[in-house]
């Protein structure tokens, strides 16, 4: 601890490779947070625990980019929302046709397919679904009339590939295939070669035709989902949640927890320690005894007790982490202020009758600022890992997708046993990278503040 000006610190800091690396990582993390907050709608964040909002996603799907490294391509989960629409009117019959083009170039059959639609109509329109395969064969899938309605209503329904009607329809067209199709599932028939039950790659066109008499329907929503085993950049978990969204939201949350806890702890610790050291005698004695008690409390068990008995909301958690965060800093701050107190100018100021508050704020605290910055950086990783650890034990705030929470879910659903590495590896790496950024910054600052450690 010596008299280093902020300019000097800045200069020294920019010289250290570690410091630059830390700042770079931190900048990237902060930009990820900002982008997340701006681009991803806040609803996804609130809907994290609502299974209904993830229904169109696949279960435990592997990240898509894995296909780049595989010879046998894993089918991607496709959600097609924009069909090409054609409307043909012939006398009193109106036909609206919705076409989905899929280029199917994977090496496995899809899991299933689901067509979901929201249709505004009156009367009783007829809905037909068919597929044109790459070899030109057209298969009729289903033909059903929608429930009759006098007035205009909005009808919401889903057609699943497991629907018995589709199977029946396909069995009627079994002459197209040179093998028995009775025991195969629908998607294994549709996407199969005609000679043998092998996958036929190429462009498929799924078309949905709606026929009406004298009326015209309006489609509000029309989605075709081809169920696959790979989805998104980060894959999905057992509850069909897109892990990329969870990981992205975890970044601002982790930074928030880490920074708030460490900054508040450092401020509390500094104030407490400096005041105790400056006052000395009885005040110092009692304050430090209180500090000793907190220091002796086993931190993690107490955090667990607090979150179980009081509340596990993320803001309370931040508060609990602060309780245990400032203790060590107060000890160091006290011994530093003891040293500064003995310096000539402080003694001179005391003799001149300066107020205590002014003495502390003007003469002692500024001396401790470099140390304060270093300890903020150093204590961030601990706060983040402790919160992640508590969440991992299932004591975190379940309404926020923190990285620890994701890992907790992974552990509960046995991700390790089932080989779902994309559920385990990325959250941990994110925790480690965030920690690393602050460790780098902290170490670089520490080397400047305590020049003895350099070399």
């Amino acid at each position, binding site marked *: 601890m010596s008299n280093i000006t902020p300019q000097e610190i800045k200069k020294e800091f920019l010289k250290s490779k570690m410091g630059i690396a830390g700042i770079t990582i931190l900048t990237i993390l902060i930009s990820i947070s900002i982008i997340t907050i701006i681009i991803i709608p806040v609803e996804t964040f609130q809907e994290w625990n609502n299974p209904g909002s993830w229904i169109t996603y696949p279960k435990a799907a592997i990240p898509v980019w894995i296909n780049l490294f595989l010879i046998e391509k894993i089918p991607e989960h496709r959600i097609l929302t924009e069909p090409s629409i054609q409307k043909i009117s012939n006398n009193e019959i109106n036909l609206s046709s919705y076409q989905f083009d899929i280029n199917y170039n994977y090496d496995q059959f899809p899991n299933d397919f689901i067509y979901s639609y929201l249709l505004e109509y009156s009367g009783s329109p007829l809905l037909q679904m068919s597929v044109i395969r790459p070899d030109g064969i057209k298969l009729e899938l289903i033909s059903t009339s929608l429930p009759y309605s006098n007035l205009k209503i909005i009808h919401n329904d889903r057609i699943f590939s497991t629907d018995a009607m589709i199977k029946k329809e396909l069995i009627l067209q079994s002459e197209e295939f040179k093998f028995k199709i009775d025991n195969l599932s629908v998607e294994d028939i549709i996407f199969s070669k005609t000679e043998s039950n092998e996958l036929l790659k190429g462009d498929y066109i799924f078309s949905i035709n709606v026929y009406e008499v004298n009326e015209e329907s309006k489609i509000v929503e029309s989605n075709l989902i081809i169920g696959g085993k790979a989805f998104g950049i980060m894959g999905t978990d057992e509850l069909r949640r897109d892990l990329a969204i969870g990981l992205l939201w975890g970044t601002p949350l982790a930074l928030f927890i880490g920074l708030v806890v460490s900054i508040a702890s450092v401020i509390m610790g500094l104030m407490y320690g400096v005041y105790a050291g400056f006052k000395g005698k009885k005040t110092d004695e009692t304050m430090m005894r209180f500090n000793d008690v907190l220091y002796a409390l086993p931190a993690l068990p107490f955090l667990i007790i607090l979150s179980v*008995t009081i509340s596990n909301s993320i803001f309370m958690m931040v508060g609990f982490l602060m309780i245990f965060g400032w203790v060590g800093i107060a000890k160091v701050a006290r011994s530093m202020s003891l040293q500064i107190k003995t310096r000539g100018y402080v003694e001179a100021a005391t003799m001149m009758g300066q107020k205590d508050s002014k003495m502390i704020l003007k003469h002692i605290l500024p001396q401790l600022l470099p140390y304060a910055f270093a300890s903020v950086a150093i204590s961030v990783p601990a706060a983040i890992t402790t919160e992640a650890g508590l969440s991992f034990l299932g004591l975190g705030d379940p309404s926020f997708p923190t990285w620890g929470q994701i890992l907790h879910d992974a552990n509960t659903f046995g991700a390790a046993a089932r080989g779902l590495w994309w559920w385990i590896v990325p959250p941990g790496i994110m925790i480690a990278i965030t920690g690393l950024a602050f460790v780098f910054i902290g170490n670089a600052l520490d080397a400047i503040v305590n020049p003895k450690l350099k070399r």
Partner: protein
Amino acid sequence: MKKYIATRCVTMFGILLITLLITIMLVGSNMDTILKQGIVFQVRSEIIENPAIGESFSSVKDFEAFIQDRTDERIKHLGLDEPWYSPQRIGLTMYKIILLDFGQATFLTSDSGSSDVKDIILEKLPRTILLFTSATIIISIIGIFVGALSASKIGSIIDRITSSFAIISSSFPVWWIGMLMIFLFAFTYQIFPARATPDIPASSPEYLGALLYHMTLPLITIVMIGFGSWAYLVRNFMVGIMQEDFIMAKKTMGINQSRITYTHALKNAAPPIITILALSLSGSLGGAIITEAVFDWPGMGRLYFEAITVMDLPVIIGATYILTVFFLVSVFIADLLYGYFDPRIRSSTDE
């Protein structure tokens, strides 16, 4: 010196009592609610099991009153009619704690079926010592060796690798590495068991062998993550000492480098190293709650977690007691050792 030790002991005892008091304050009310619910449930189920009691009442009101009476009677019998903060109850609990009587666990039992808190803790503590204390010892040995090695060649490749490994490994949570290790070595390559609790009963002769086999994966994980920061600390102490005049003098005398490093410098770096060793050995006794949860290791950490989740106050108090005592005693011993090894400190503590 005697006076110093005496005051330290008194303060330590005070801190211990305050710690336990805080624990009771936090857990007490929840614990009472759970116990009372348990009594109501117990009374009801006894009546359901024995329909004759129910038939002997003519009106529903009488019957309800009878249940209420029985519940109240039991609550009174257990002393739960007073709130947890009443002086009698806290006084009694604290008195018992001072006499090392932790009483009976409310829900948890030891593997052998005893619900005596002492039995439960005595059963779990050796396992935690076996895993975490041996891990700490291995970590410190590797750490001191690697640290000294990199301190003797500052700026070399070994030094750089050690430093960067230390920094990187310290930012990975151990439990996450544990999950990865389980994923890799228990499921992908089935070398080690995924759960660290042996399946065979504790009484059979093969138990120790099975326990050691189950221990390997957690041990490797803890050592892998832990030794880096140890090596880094030792290196930094050593670097500080290597700059001292007497080492320079030894160098000019022509004593060879490795002898200086391993005898003279290491000897002088001993005080802080021993202090940290004492602290981390005592810290290891608590086991890491999360690490034990990941590996399902049946030690103190998991006991603590289970006790907190079911609000088993006697077990929580017993475990907190043991952990706090170990912590305080080791801080004390570390201070004494530091003073013994480094006379510069002693003068200030004698005051």
